[in-house]
């Protein structure tokens, strides 16, 4: 157990420092959220309508930022070799790497999400649901994103490849989360969208590590 807590501490610390860490991710997120009104026009009515959805899409994009380095650095410097030489299965190691990624970028982004949405004009009572969706969606983004990061190991311009692999996997959480927020904002039943988002996150947590470990083994051999 002590080796897994040590790994989690290390992974969170590394993710915190990777590509500028949460500050850059949150800054990027704020940037996208600021650009939108400039492109769409400043009418409060129009902005309020798109605020939850826009906050949600920006979140998916910001989650991509530090993803490419999730496995690549360990692959390049040999740490991934050494991580396999342990009684802990590689699947568990990948799981913990994604949890570290989520703690360092997903959780801070979830805190920023309601702020960004409200800055765009979303109603205050929407904030708790946006936070919950972003927290849950962040798990889905981290674990599906890990699959893309592992699959693009060893490829040139791996970051771009990661984005291309991962964006289709980001579609369901964007639909479910955005749908739940939209429904809540217009007073419709929102629980089904939220439940589907949770189901997708659970699936990503269950299947992601298997795929990541297989991709890592393939890249190492």
């Amino acid at each position, binding site marked *: 157990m*002590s*080796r897994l807590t*040590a*790994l989690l501490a*290390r992974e969170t*610390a*590394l993710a915190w*420092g990777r590509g500028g860490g949460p500050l850059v991710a949150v800054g990027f997120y704020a940037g996208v959220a600021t650009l939108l009104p400039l492109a769409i026009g400043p009418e409060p009515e129009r902005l309020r309508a798109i605020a939850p959805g826009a906050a949600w899409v920006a979140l998916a994009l910001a989650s991509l930022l530090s993803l490419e380095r999730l496995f690549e*650095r*360990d692959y*390049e*410097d*040999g*740490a*991934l*070799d*050494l*991580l*396999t*030489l*342990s*009684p*802990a299965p590689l699947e568990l190691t990948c799981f913990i790497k994604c949890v570290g990624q989520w703690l360092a970028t997903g959780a801070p982004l979830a805190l920023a999400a309601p702020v960004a949405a409200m800055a765009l004009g979303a109603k205050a009572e929407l904030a708790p649901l946006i936070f919950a969706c972003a927290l849950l969606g962040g798990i889905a983004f981290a674990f599906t994103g890990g699959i893309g990061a592992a699959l693009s190991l060893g490829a040139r311009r791996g970051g771009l490849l990661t984005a291309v692999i991962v964006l289709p996997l980001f579609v369901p959480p964007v639909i479910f989360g955005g749908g739940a927020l939209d429904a809540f904002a217009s007073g419709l039943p929102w629980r089904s969208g939220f439940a589907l988002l949770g189901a997708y996150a659970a699936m990503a947590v269950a299947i992601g590590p298997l795929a990541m470990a297989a991709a890592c083994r393939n890249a*190492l*051999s």
Partner: protein
Amino acid sequence: MRRAAKLSKSLGERLITQLLLKGCAIRRGGRLLFENAELDLRAGEACALTGPNGSGKTSLLRAVAGLVRLEAGEIGFGEVDPAEARGEALHLVGHADGLKAARTAREELTFWSRWCGGGDIGDAAAALDLTTLLDLEVRRLSAGQRRRLALARLLAAPRPLWLLDEPLSPLDARWREGFGALMARHLEGGGMILAAVHDPLPGATKSLEIAG
């Protein structure tokens, strides 16, 4: 160096006492690197793995660690299941040392020691004369110091089989001798060493040459 004796004693319950390579062949990128590599390494023995550049020494070490698939042949660890042996009984020190440049030597050594099931790093750091360097970031270490930090893992988390890829190359004359003494302690304690080298390996009793 005196502390090293204490460390190798803690090897205590040894997991594996044999490394057996039978007719091993490795193919990389469509090219057959070597075939029919044979080795029977027992507790307390060291083997020098030699061959020209690109002959597959590193690939063979990685195959023993389970990272590279064999084209033919098999690798056995005596009675022990290979997956268990790889998880708990061997160390691999290669060119890529797995150390993160932005973290301190202490953080890295502590993590890898815990990851490999070891404990306190104080004795290991002292044996490789790293104590005063522990609070520096890895990026500030010289190549030789960095290699010593990678080698300190071997002592911090005792495991019977050491797979070393040119362990001596960045070390100065004093540390070549010093690490030779540490290897001798490891062998006395019943350990095994398989090392890819270009220079003679101190304490080696066997050798395996693979053709280029």
